[in-house]
């Protein structure tokens, strides 16, 4: 089905609605477009689609529009929308279902730096069982090639004893790594062989 939305033509994928409902645990169909989520969203200025438009896009099965949007990556996860939705929907669950689906399909070009941050965070957790900020920032800089951002802040934090040179690690780090890998490999609707996630920018997850 072809859908014309504000002059943009998109293809509707009706099965996409079910997929996102299942991944998020939220019945996206219940959204009646009151716009309360959009009104209270603190991250709107970084978004290309308003949160209520993301919800409408999912309802209409506009997979490409939604998965390739910047909005899903720029959600700050503050849950203001989730606290205020009159239909009791947790939009953060929906946003995270969308980012994880976009990530699994390798659609990350809308915000590669945000993806690099989350990958780098989970890489250090995968190795050590805990987050190691110095390692995370190093990995992120390698991925984004943005070597100089926040160097001054890093020096200040170091001077205050707030940057650990040596990482803490968990004895059960192999178990933590297994939990991370299995979570990434879990796909909905299947008992089939898991599809490995598409690694980006030197991703090692």
């Amino acid at each position, binding site marked *: 089905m072809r859908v014309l939305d504000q002059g943009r033509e998109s293809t509707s994928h009706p099965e996409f609605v079910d997929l996102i409902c299942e*991944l*998020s*645990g939220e019945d996206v169909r219940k959204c009646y477009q009151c716009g309360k989520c959009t009104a209270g969203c*603190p*991250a709107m*200025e*970084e978004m290309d689609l308003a949160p209520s438009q993301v919800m409408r896009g999912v309802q209409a099965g506009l997979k490409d529009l939604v998965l390739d949007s910047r909005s899903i*990556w*720029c959600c*700050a*996860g*503050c*849950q*203001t929308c*989730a*606290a205020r939705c009159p239909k*009791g929907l*947790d939009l*953060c*669950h929906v946003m*995270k279902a969308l980012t*994880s689906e976009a*990530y699994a399909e390798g659609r990350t070009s809308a*915000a590669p*730096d*945000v993806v690099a*941050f*989350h*990958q780098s*965070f*989970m890489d250090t*957790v995968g190795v050590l*069982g*805990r*987050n*190691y*900020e110095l390692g995370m*920032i190093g990995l*992120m800089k390698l991925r984004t090639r943005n070597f100089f*951002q*926040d160097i001054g802040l890093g020096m*200040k*934090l170091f001077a*205050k*004893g*707030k*940057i*650990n040179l040596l990482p*803490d690690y*968990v*004895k*059960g*780090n192999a178990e*933590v790594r297994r*939990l*991370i890998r299995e*979570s*990434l490999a879990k796909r909905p609707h299947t008992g089939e062989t898991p599809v490995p*996630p598409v690694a980006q920018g030197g991703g090692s*997850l």
Partner: protein
Amino acid sequence: MTIAYFPGCSAASTGREFAESTEALCEALGLALVEIPDWNCCGATSAGVLSPHMSAALNSRNLKQAAALDAPILAPCAACYNRLKTAQLELREKPALAAEYEVPAKALNTRIMNLPEMLLEYPGLERLAEMVKVDLSYLHPGAYYGCLMLRPPKAVQFDDAEQPTSMERILTAVGLHPVDWCARTECCGASLASTRPGYVTNQVGKIVSCAKRSEANCLVAACPLCVLNLESRQAEPEPLPVFYLSEIVAAAIGVAPEKLGTQRHLLSKALVGAKGH
């Protein structure tokens, strides 16, 4: 009273003074903190962004590790607190998932507390007020709750998501004069701090100017991500100092400031007796 302690990853780095002050405060209150053995990262925002299953998976291990201690859990970091509680709720609602991760029933019902939640009960407001030794009445803080301690209300079930009062009640009990202000539950944007710094600087600027308009002379928070962000992204010529709730309460009941890690702040080193706050 024994409390199962989940320090969180930031306790060893950017949130060090939060951990130091929380530990010193609990010692002064006679609460025995026992660190949860071999706890792992809660996954913060990143786990959920990459997979809808990852946060529950990581925290099922934490809940199992904590179950051995058979005590209520204190997770001072608001992100850890939120992820632990959210995962616990999800595992309670999905028995098949709890069985898959072999989470014992006890772990599904263990109480998980944030710092203000603990203080309201252990030792409670009356006892806190009796313990005050140092006059901090010159501090007129804006109590800053941020997001993760309050939302989503369905999972955290703590205070009122829009009009919380717990931190103001605690601060008043220990002799401070918290101000009424409008950005107490606004998001500071911490999860985008290293990827969208310009946006986050704006967001922090809005919060700080709200507090200043209400004549706050400092901010008090109970989240290491909020405090790092509010301190490091303030671009104002006269920045507002930001303190941890644990530092303030401990200082008020007479714990020496050097035990609280207060010297590690980026904006204001001095807490007790400082002039011109």
